């Protein structure tokens, strides 16, 4: 029996509360300005096609000179890591004294339908890595990959291990043949070729339908009912709107890259089998020998732990850490627990592995031992370029960057 039917007083009280919240909520919603995201200051330092590389303005102290390059997924936007000032993994990492760069993949349109997975890894990501190496003078940099971006960094680290000092993966799918995730199950019966050939690029809205179906009632009903409960709290409403903006700020997927990612990884699980080829090179995860910190979310419904955890057994690294964060795929960045635990965990892990010079101070690499920053591959050229880039003239890295081995890649 429902309380409301048994006790009219209870019913009236409920009704009154709901009405009060609705009125207050309407007042808040109509008065709320457009929400701001990405509050942490950063500068554009490099761009190529639609991809942009940003450098976060560092804090006063630098605990490890080796920079971190963050590679986010193509799905949704990288500002999830810097959603608002009190929920920002980026801000927390900067606060720990780290030097951070982040890739913004932009919004692919129909002109990008032929952009391949090779382009993302061998060109855009590699150019960013080279740019950061040259700019900072570090022979090797730290690479942090998130979700699909984590898969990119795993592939990249296997192809270019000589450029990566430490690899950090967060909620990264590696073994795609787990049945724990609905995306893994559904993708098995998708005619990817037909999708890509027909649509050219895969619209973000199309992807979002799939994501919403993962938790239909929670994401399409209860989330909004829950908002009703807090509609009279301006801070909660603003946070909600900010998250809503992120969730539906969904770039399209470049067709050819999507085709390969879905077919080779989701459907055929080639990365785990050692059969994935990028260009004409096979991706051998055993070539990943640098220290690895693999972070997964225990309640992740998008990338289930069973998809992330196997990475530690597949790489050649001796120094590898597996860290299960209690939370979900999004909570790992925005939950209050994440603010307290995750950034310290990452920075602590990195600082421990930051090379030290003869004087015991941390430097950016072995080639720089005793000489500190600036003795890396760019020999100071990057520093000159950085000023130029910071002024808005973001351009390609120097032509003299470490040459890639000649391949048959496009």
């Amino acid at each position: 029996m429902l309380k409301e039917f048994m006790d009219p007083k209870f019913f009236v009280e409920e009704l009154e509360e709901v009405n009060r919240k609705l009125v207050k909520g309407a007042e808040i919603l109509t008065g709320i300005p457009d929400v701001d995201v990405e509050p942490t200051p950063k500068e554009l330092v490099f761009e190529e096609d639609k991809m942009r590389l940003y450098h976060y303005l560092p804090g006063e102290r630098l605990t490890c000179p080796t920079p971190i390059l963050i590679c986010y997924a193509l799905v949704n936007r990288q500002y999830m890591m810097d959603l608002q000032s009190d929920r920002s993994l980026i801000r927390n990492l900067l606060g720990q004294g780290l030097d951070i760069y982040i890739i913004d993949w932009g919004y692919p349109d129909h002109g990008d339908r032929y952009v391949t997975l090779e382009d993302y890894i061998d060109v855009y990501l590699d150019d960013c890595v080279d740019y950061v190496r040259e700019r900072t003078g570090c022979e090797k940099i730290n690479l942090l990959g998130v979700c699909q971006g984590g898969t990119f960094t795993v592939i990249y680290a296997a192809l270019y291990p000589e450029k990566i000092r430490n690899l950090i993966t967060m909620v990264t799918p590696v073994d795609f043949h787990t049945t724990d995730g609905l995306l893994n199950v559904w993708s098995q019966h998708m005619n990817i070729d037909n999708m890509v050939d027909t649509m050219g690029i895969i619209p973000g809205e199309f992807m979002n339908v799939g994501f919403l179906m993962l938790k239909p009632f929670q994401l399409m009903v209860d989330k909004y009912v829950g908002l009703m409960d807090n509609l009279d709290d301006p801070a909660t409403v603003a946070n909600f709107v900010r998250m809503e903006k992120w969730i539906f700020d969904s770039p399209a997927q470049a067709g050819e890259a999507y085709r390969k990612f879905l077919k080779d990884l989701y459907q055929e699980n080639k990365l785990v089998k050692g059969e994935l080829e990028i260009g004409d090179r096979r991706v051998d995860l055993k070539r990943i020998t640098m220290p690895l910190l693999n972070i997964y979310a225990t309640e992740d419904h998008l990338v289930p732990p069973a998809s992330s955890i196997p990475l530690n057994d597949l790489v050649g690294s001796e120094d590898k850490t597996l860290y299960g964060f209690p939370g979900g795929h999004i909570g790992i960045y925005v939950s209050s627990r994440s603010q307290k635990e995750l950034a310290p965990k990452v920075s602590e892990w990195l600082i421990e592995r930051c090379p030290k010079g003869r004087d015991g101070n941390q430097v950016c690499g072995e080639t720089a031992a005793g000489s500190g920053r600036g003795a890396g591959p760019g020999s100071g050229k990057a520093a000159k370029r950085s000023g130029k880039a910071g002024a808005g003239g973001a351009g390609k890295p120097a032509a003299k960057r470490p040459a890639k081995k000649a391949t048959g890649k496009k």
Partner: protein
Amino acid sequence: MQESGAAWSDLWRTWQRMQAEAYRGWMDMWLRAWGRPGGSEGAGAPGVSDTPGDLYRQWAEFTRELMERFAAPAQGVGPETFAKMFQSADVYANLYAMWAGLYERYRKAVGEGGDLDVKALGGLLEEWAEEYRELVRKVFAPALPEQLQWIAELYSGEIPLMAAGLMAKIWAPWYEYAREAAAKMTGLDKPSPEAAVGLYEGWRKAYEESFGRLLRAPAMGYYREAAEKLVQAVDSLNEFNLVLAEFYASLQGAGSKGLERLQERLASMQEEGKGGPMSFRDLYRLWWQTNEDIYIELFRTEEFSRLLGSLVDRGMQFRRAFQAYVEEITKELPFPNRSEMDHLYKTVDRLKRDVRALKKELAALKAEGGGE
């Protein structure tokens, strides 16, 4: 003068009588048509018109009578003229009566108790064709010169029968489907996805055997390409809708199951003594969480995964077919279509790769040569 006055008086009386009779005749006609005031003779009563056709006949009869009263004694004008006029109008009345009769028989054939007999309907069409033939023979043929009488024969013989047969063939699967669907619906205790899928499968079968055949028939003429592409788009939309129906049926099934599970949970709480009063909020929470569980159970199944894959695939097929049609009909407009843009994108993509490779080679050469 007196004579003239008497004549005028007679004329006037005659005119008044004629007016009165005409008015009475008019009123009688309407009374016969609609029944008498007070409802003593309603529609369907003997002597009262059943159809607008009857009404028309009564009106025509009345008018003829009326004109007879007004008619001048001269031969060849007056009643005869009107009789000829109305004779020609009878053609329409006869046609109307034939269609009305056909409709009435059809209504009886399909309407009584929901029973639908395709064979009976076929017989009905033949009967109608016979009537049609008779009508043409009687009404139209006499109007044609002798040398052209064969035309009336031709169009009252095989052709209407063939047309009727073709129509019967097209409609027959739908009658069959309607009967099956009605039987399935009445035999259902509650809606189930299987039943819904069965209904949609029946629909598909009827479609395939009727309009599907028409749509897939080869197009001809100036708009052949566009027509064919349109047909393909419509066809693929139908294919998509069929899977969509199955998809919705699947979701609906989960919804019904969710409701059952919710009832079970509530009953179980009651039995365990936890069935105390709960708030709307508690009930809502139990509702959505129960449903979430059920839907995710469904989503995890291989069947659903295949169905989803099939839905997306059919959706893509429709999108592609529709795109082809749009491109076909807009090809003369002064803007590039998607295929043309894709071709350009491909070219630009190839050029970008070439430039990138050349830059790399140039840089390597410069590095080897020690130049900047």
